[in-house]
């Protein structure tokens, strides 16, 4: 029996904690994120039964589009807010002391966050004001601003092996690879003909990057030869909203899409679709794979539900 967690607002993003196997953070926004409040939930999987408990929830003035756990502090998480600010929360402090910080520099909504998994001290924010900002927890101002995209930046992802390299996916249909030591982007991959909503690096091959786009496809690119994709994964019925490479399996990646399904892919195999879960009844917008527990995955959608299940089992099983 797989547990379900019902959020009062529409879900936007879910992330496993890199410190606690059973802990997740969920970003939600009222009224589908168009206008209204938001809430960050920190939830915990009960060991005894298939129950999810909410540890703490933080209310925000505007919708929360993304959330990321700190890699250095086990109780700290950052949230991307639709009013352009980034809130830092510390679950070890009493709820009245939260948020600990509010970093407001972006001019438009902050859509994506990613914490550096190798250096563990910095994180990036991707915003609809076409820019990406680099932050650390100890400074109130951003360290760097990367402004080259011509349209909203939807997602950023750190390279799992090279601590200074990251990629950004944007609505201008390109993916840019950046190096924080360089002033500008180092590579531009014109990956799709439509907006690119998400990108992620392969954890075991640092030159492979996957992009998910509004054109319903997921393309895997090798940055050494980026003119032609390594693989194209078709199968979603609508735009693919988020993808994530598995931290445990080299070739596995998971994606969620506006066709309400969460799909598992093995891109090295000819028939790449390995699994499909259609437990959501609205757009599936957030998906994550646990770094600590092999095969554990979570997804959330606009149907206000968060599912956590083990790969191979039915998330709605009871």
């Amino acid at each position, binding site marked *: 029996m797989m547990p379900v967690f019902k959020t009062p607002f529409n879900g936007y993003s879910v992330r496993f904690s890199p410190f606690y196997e059973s802990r997740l953070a969920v970003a939600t926004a009222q009224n589908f994120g168009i206008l209204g409040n938001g809430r960050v939930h920190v939830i915990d999987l009960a*060991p005894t039964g298939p129950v999810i408990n909410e540890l703490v929830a933080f*209310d*925000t003035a505007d919708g929360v589009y993304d959330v990321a756990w700190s890699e250095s502090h086990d109780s700290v998480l950052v949230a991307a807010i639709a009013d352009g600010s980034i809130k830092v929360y510390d679950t070890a402090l009493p709820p009245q002391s939260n948020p600990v910080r*509010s970093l407001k520099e972006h001019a438009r909504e902050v859509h994506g966050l990613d914490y550096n998994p190798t250096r563990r001290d910095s994180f990036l924010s991707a915003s609809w004001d076409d820019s990406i900002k680099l932050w650390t927890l100890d400074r109130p101002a951003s360290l760097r601003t990367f402004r080259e995209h011509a349209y909203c930046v939807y997602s950023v992802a750190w390279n*799992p092996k090279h601590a200074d390299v990251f990629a950004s996916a944007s609505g201008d249909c390109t993916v840019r690879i950046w190096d924080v030591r360089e002033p500008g982007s180092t590579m531009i991959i014109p990956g799709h003909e439509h907006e690119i909503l998400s990108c992620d690096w392969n954890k075991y091959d640092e030159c492979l990057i996957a992009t998910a786009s*509004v054109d319903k496809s997921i393309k895997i690119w090798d940055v050494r030869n980026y003119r032609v994709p390594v693989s194209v994964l078709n199968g979603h019925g609508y735009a693919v909203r988020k993808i994530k490479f598995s931290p445990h399996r080299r070739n596995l990646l998971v994606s969620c899409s506006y066709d309400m399904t969460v799909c598992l892919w093995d891109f090295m195999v000819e*028939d790449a679709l390995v*699994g499909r879960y259609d437990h959501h009844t609205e757009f599936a917008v957030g998906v994550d794979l646990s770094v600590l527990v*092999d*095969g554990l995955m979570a997804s959330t959608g606009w149907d206000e539900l968060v599912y956590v299940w083990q790969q191979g089992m039915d998330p709605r099983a009871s």
Partner: protein
Amino acid sequence: MATTQSPSPNSNDDKPQAVSEVVQQANQVQQDVRPEATKQGVPASVFVNSEPIREDQVSNAVKFLSHPKVRGSPVIYRRSFLEKKGLTKEEIDEAFRRVPDPSPSSQPASLSQDGQANSLSSVQTQAPIQTPQPLPAAPTGIVSSGRVARRQFQWYHAVSAVGLLAASGCGTALLIKKVIIPKLKLWVRKVVLEEDNVYAKKIDAKPSLAEEAAAAAKAAAAAASDVAKASQEMLNSKNEERRRFEEFMNLMDAQVQEMKSMSNSIRKLEGQANSSGRAFSDHDDHRASASSTKQSYANGNVDLNVQPGRTSTLPASAEPPHPKSFMEKMEMIQRGEKPSNIREVNDMPPNPNQQLSNPRITPRTKPWEAQNGPRQVLQSQTSAEGLNQNGVDSGLNYLVDDESSTPWWQRKNVRITEIENEDEVKAAGSYGVKTNEQPSVQRTWVPPQPPPVAMPEAAEAIRRPKSAPKETAMQEQLADEQSAARPSEVTDELQRITKMFSTAGKLNKVSSYQVALKVFKTRDTFYLRVRTFQHDFVPRDPKAKPKKLKYPQFYDPYGPRPPPSDKIVELADCISALSPEERGQIGPTLMERLRHPKMQTITVEGMELGSQGGAGAGAAKTEEKKEKTTFDVKLEKFDAAAKIKVIKEVRAFTNLGLKEAKDLVEKAPVMLKQGVTKEEASDIMERIKATGGVAVME
């Protein structure tokens, strides 16, 4: 960038081409130097463009950028367009460098745009720009012609241009004011005068000051009377431009069409009158709001004030059905109403200088880092009682009561579960007395538990005070061990490990636990990777198309099919004669070769079982088969040109996948199909012969 191509050569293009030719030679040397410079500057970084600049792309980009309509758009959109066409940064920069300076026109909008394109403006054009008055046409012509003639004389021309401005300032002030108001006419005049100046340049080798003054006065005086002529010519030039940039405009139009049809489909779907702008107009919307002049090449048709971008754009045919309540909310907000459930929330930090709490757990190495070798994990501060304190956290107490000692979400199916459990329990036991010396891989939530009796050697080995060489050497040994691991040989491996421990040098307890854990982890993950693609525990969607099994007939040793060919039997004999360690190496080696894990697992097992049982029976059976009426078809050779056709044929009657069929055909002469009747065999032979191969029946 062949798409924005084939402008008919006309006077408008002559100038930029001439410029580019003149400049190109000068730049040739620089261009050669530049790629080398960049390569030296960033040694061996995979994430950097290492392609040389493609001249054809650059020249296409130059033609694109020289177009006046393009000139009117913000630089960022020009760059974005070129990037989408696949140009690299260097190529785009080169194209911007080559495009002749845009005339410093009188529009404040384009002034700011020129300011952005820093690579475009050269020194002498900036001088006129800085003058408070927008320039009349004459100095424009002079300036651009001067630049074309010789770069080194730019200063002289700049000075002369400024002087001319001062001289003709009062006389042309009125005229300019007349011109400012109809912005369009001015733009056209610039176009027209560029054409004039092309001819002017050709005639005058080195225009003298007097000539320039005369030309300036003439042009300034004739400016007012040219307005009517200009508007007529504007229409003509417009037609030409439309022809030249048909594809470019079609691109925009196509987008607009998509947006329109999407709006129609939305209307149809939801039956709502006013849902047009929201969900799709983001692209055009954004650009329409950004570019202030009519010259923007995005036909922003829908004008909305609601923040664009909140829903992602979609191609018209694939707009997902948004939830009904979503559309209702959108409508409400577009009308200006606020949904009722929003409340005022103060989410500002109560204490902006609040200290973050100290981290209680050290960061763990990521699974991909652990596999690639031990890394130096950044040690963040841990509190002294890091281990014990974790009991406080409610999330960690769960293991105490569970009889299987793992939480429900960790229980996996079948063997993976058991292995995982064993590992964690062992790890738990080994961590019971852990010190803080090597905290890089901590499972701090695992309470101490005695290891199961089944592994006495491991427990014994771990408890003994051990010694070992440096951990890196241990890792290498473990890596070797890893490939030899087999699911059924846990005890063998542990014996090997304990032997390793006992023969090693000095090792304190902590490192041995580390090593033990890493062994289990690596072994675990190794054959987990082997097992991952067993689909028995992944529920297949019943609606999905049935999986096409790609196992060729002669890999299946089970009846009722005929037994494997001689070659396979021999292979199986060899394999069964191997030692256990070597047998364990077959798996990964084959996996590398075949890159098809599904097939590989079956093959290994099949060969295992088949060789022992069928070694004897197989030999007998093949003899029998030869006497009977079944036949084999063997592909002798094939025409190299017809290889693809042969592969297709082979695929057709062996049901192999593309890669397998290709490998098979390349190995010719090779057995294609066994155990078929004479008619089928001859039919197969005919088909292969038809495609250009040679097949033999036996």
